[in-house]
């Protein structure tokens, strides 16, 4: 199939089935800064597609996962079982590193309400959004700042860009970025998901991760472990997300309610200096309202 337009940003290639429309950079808008975040963190200034891929499916509409990725209220409820199991886990038990990464992430999902409320959630034209990072322990995936691997990584990054720029790069604190309607990635953690609708009630996600050439290999191994906890089919975390999507889908199919409420924070969203609309608190559903605004625009052909 020949697509009318292809374009790339920082090495990420996009194809458009529309011969006319906004350019890639116009379409991505402020989301380009999340690609910058992901690539700039690499000591070589490049990323390598590595680690294979995994695919998972759920019995629900494709919108559900996109509404979830920047939702900060659900972890305390949807992920309660893995948060509790991880909290009770003894750190004296052997790990080869992979389990420690996953358990750390589960514990982080149990962050107090205040952490989530104070997070930033930003949206931009065409349905896109990103949220601030809730990893308050200053750890890049699994390792403390003074860990030798982290020290080596920071040194390698500073060697290319200088100390000041390295500090600037590492200060970016961002978790999920959703490029509506079919891409979601974690710039700080080098995780990328492509969302593929298979049917009205069936959706596939293809998961990729990246290696930072020039960074300690241990960081790549940690990225793999992180991928397994946030995207692994048998993850202690993801399985409860997938179950929830399926229950929501069944609820919607029941025609039991006329309206789906996405009003959390409605009326308090406000433009910030970057021009993006920001939720008044981290648990605002501003990102969902923004997605539906984009959807309505496409479906009605409004300019």
């Amino acid at each position: 199939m020949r697509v009318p337009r292809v374009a790339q940003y920082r090495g990420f290639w996009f194809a458009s089935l529309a011969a006319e429309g906004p350019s890639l950079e116009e379409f991505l808008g402020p989301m380009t800064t999340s690609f910058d975040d992901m690539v700039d963190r690499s000591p070589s200034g490049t990323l390598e597609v590595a680690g294979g891929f995994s695919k998972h499916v759920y019995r629900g509409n494709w919108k559900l996962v996109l509404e979830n990725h920047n939702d900060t209220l659900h972890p305390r409820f949807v992920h309660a079982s893995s948060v509790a199991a991880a909290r009770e886990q003894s750190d004296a038990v052997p790990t080869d590193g992979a389990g420690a990464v996953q358990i750390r992430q589960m514990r982080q999902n149990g962050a107090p309400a205040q952490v989530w409320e104070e997070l930033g959630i930003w949206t931009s034209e065409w349905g896109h959004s990103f949220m601030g990072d809730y990893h308050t322990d200053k750890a890049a995936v699994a390792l403390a700042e003074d860990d030798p691997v982290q020290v080596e990584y920071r040194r390698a990054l500073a060697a290319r860009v200088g100390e000041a720029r390295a500090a600037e790069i590492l200060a970016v604190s961002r978790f999920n970025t959703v490029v509506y309607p079919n891409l979601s990635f974690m710039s700080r953690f080098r995780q990328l998901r492509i969302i593929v609708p298979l049917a009205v009630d069936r959706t596939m996600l293809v998961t990729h991760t990246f290696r930072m050439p020039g960074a300690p290999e241990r960081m790549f191994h940690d990225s793999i472990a992180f991928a397994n906890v946030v995207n692994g089919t048998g993850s202690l975390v993801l399985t409860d997300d997938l179950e929830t999507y399926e229950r929501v889908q069944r609820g919607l199919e029941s025609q039991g309610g006329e309206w789906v409420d996405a009003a959390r924070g409605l009326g308090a969203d406000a433009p910030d200096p970057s021009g993006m609309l920001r939720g008044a608190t981290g648990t605002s559903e501003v990102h969902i309202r923004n997605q539906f605004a984009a959807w309505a625009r496409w479906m009605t052909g409004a300019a």
Partner: protein
Amino acid sequence: MDAAAATIADPFAFVLHECDLLDRWRLQEWLSLWAEECSYWVPALPGQESPHDALSHIYDDRRLLETRVRRFAHAMFHAQKPPSRTVRFATNLRVVEQPGAALSVLCSLQVAEFRNGLHRSYLGHCRYDLLRGGAGGLLIRRKRFELIDCDAPQEGISIIL
């Protein structure tokens, strides 16, 4: 019965016992079959050699395996409400002796699952790397279950395979 089971020395009987404990949801006893340093692995790619350089459906070391088991007791494990019923078939069992006190069992494994009105089947090649323990019994050092469709889209796997 279960104290005796913990010291099963015959590798085929040991594997069938392991399957039986999972089918009967005796997860604490199941955990006691594992060595202090161990891994439970369901790769996402055929022939995947290392769990550390490619994505997996599941890769647990001992610490994470304990967390996985503990989660089943939690009231808000949504993906196990209602719980699954399972039955396992392990066949074509072969023993491969390894140096020292180690040996491996290779088998064809099928896990049939029924939950929420849906049937599901996991089918593949399973390898158990075992250690002969001090009391004449066996311990699992590594279990690697490669599904024949591991690189195809999978729904969430909420049970232990």
